[in-house]
């Protein structure tokens, strides 16, 4: 009896903790919005973060995008071959990349690369009192540390997603046309026929949203780190897990809303 009530108690507390955390993240988001519109914006910091989140993620995004497109083409080919519809491989890859895989995979890769780094960086700054030092020097840490990261995430994720989409389609093309001998004209024709501007742009909106999630979660976890080096490690892990899960869950809802 006691054990059951303890379990219920623990479960309830976990739910409450999660809800509380969501609330805190939301509050952080509101304060980010407020600090974002308060000049002056530190362009130099934003660019630095854009370089870190965007430019330095290009390689990994190109790699994952290309191979995702390639494997989609391969898998799609085996399916479509049964209906003699091999030329649909191109449009499948293109639709899959622009609508889902481009944004989601890019977001997951950037979460792993940059979201975790944000949590670790801010966490270290927190436990070594650098964030306090900022406050003491009358500089708002949210404005100085978090706003540039959020802006970078929201802007760079769509940019990376475009690259990922494009590379995925290119990868699909290189598997489909020279290797699997799908007619190049039909391959491309079907892409242009089946893919709408809306597919691309909605994918990019998703990406921007994912960029917000991953940078917000990374910053939140880092910003609220306690407990030294161990705490930094924990914050980093939690940031990656929470951001990834949030991205995948919100992807469902975004898809349901958009398409």
């Amino acid at each position, binding site marked *: 009896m006691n054990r059951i009530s303890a379990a219920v108690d623990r479960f309830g507390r976990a739910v409450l903790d999660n809800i509380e955390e969501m609330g805190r993240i939301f509050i952080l988001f509101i304060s980010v919005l407020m600090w974002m519109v308060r000049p002056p914006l530190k362009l130099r910091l934003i660019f630095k973060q854009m370089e870190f989140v965007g430019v330095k993620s290009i390689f990994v995004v190109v790699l994952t995008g290309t191979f995702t497109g390639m494997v989609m083409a391969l898998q799609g080919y085996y399916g479509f071959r049964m209906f003699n519809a091999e030329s649909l491989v191109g449009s499948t890859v293109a639709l899959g990349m622009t609508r889902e895989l481009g944004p989601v995979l890019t977001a997951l890769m950037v979460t792993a690369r940059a979201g975790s780094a944000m949590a670790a960086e801010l966490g270290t700054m927190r436990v070594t009192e650098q964030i306090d*030092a900022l406050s003491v*020097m009358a500089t708002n840490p949210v404005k100085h540390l978090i706003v540039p990261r959020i802006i970078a995430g929201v802007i760079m994720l769509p940019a990376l997603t475009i690259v990922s989409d494009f590379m995925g389609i290119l990868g699909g093309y290189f598997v489909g046309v020279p290797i699997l001998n799908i007619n190049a004209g039909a391959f491309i024709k079907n892409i242009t026929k089946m893919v709408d501007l809306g597919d691309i742009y909605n994918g990019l909106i998703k990406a921007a949203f994912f960029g917000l999630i991953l940078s917000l979660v990374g910053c939140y976890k880092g910003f609220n780190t306690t407990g030294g080096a161990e705490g930094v490690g924990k914050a980093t892990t939690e940031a990656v897990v929470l951001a990834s899960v949030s991205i995948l869950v919100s992807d469902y809802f975004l898809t349901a809303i958009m398409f």
Partner: protein
Amino acid sequence: MIKLVDVHKSFGRQKVLGGINLDIEDGKTTVIIGGSGGGKSVLLKHIIGLLRPDSGQVIVDGVDIASLNDRDLNEIRKKFGMLFQEAALFDSMNVMENVAFPLRAHTKKKDAEIRQTVAEMLKAVGLPGVENKMPSELSGGMRKRVGLARAIALHPQIVLFDEPTTGLDPVMTEAINELIIETQKSFELTCVVISHDVQSIFKVGHRIAMLYEGKIVEYGTSEEIRGSSNPVLRQFLSGSLEGPISVM
């Protein structure tokens, strides 16, 4: 003029400050002593508004900073400089950028001017020419001195020192103490220094406060403290295991 009135602070169930009452005199150096984990840093963070009291007031120049919003608090903070326990230098920036940080944030000085000021500050703390080093390339003492340079770069009225000499060798300890005394004198600063080091306490402090179990148990001039018969103080100063302070 800084005044703490019945300041209480708990973290969860852990009660850290249990009714602090303390007046800090302008233009003097006040040293706060107390055991490790006793809440000295917490007390210091209340003075600069990094932590807000659960109850009580922290009055700086007649204003209760506990009730201020962020913007007004920032205005108050421009009067302060703070040297953190581990210096808290921004490790993504070099020494130059660290010391220049408050200047860039709060003055409209030109870059050349800022460079000049930074050089002066570094010279004042005895580290000329380290502008291009990264914090990770510096020793603990050097870091603290750079932290001090950063803390006094804006020529604040009040400077808070959180254990400036802990973990340093005796010579370095002496150098830092001299630095604190000199800067205090030359800029007529109000200083609040947290320290364990008995030698430093009497050298640096005009006033000394003893924090014990969340309260200020003794407060007075160095002479008064030296002559105090408070058993807690006596045990702390003598470093004895016998007494009310239990080590376990």
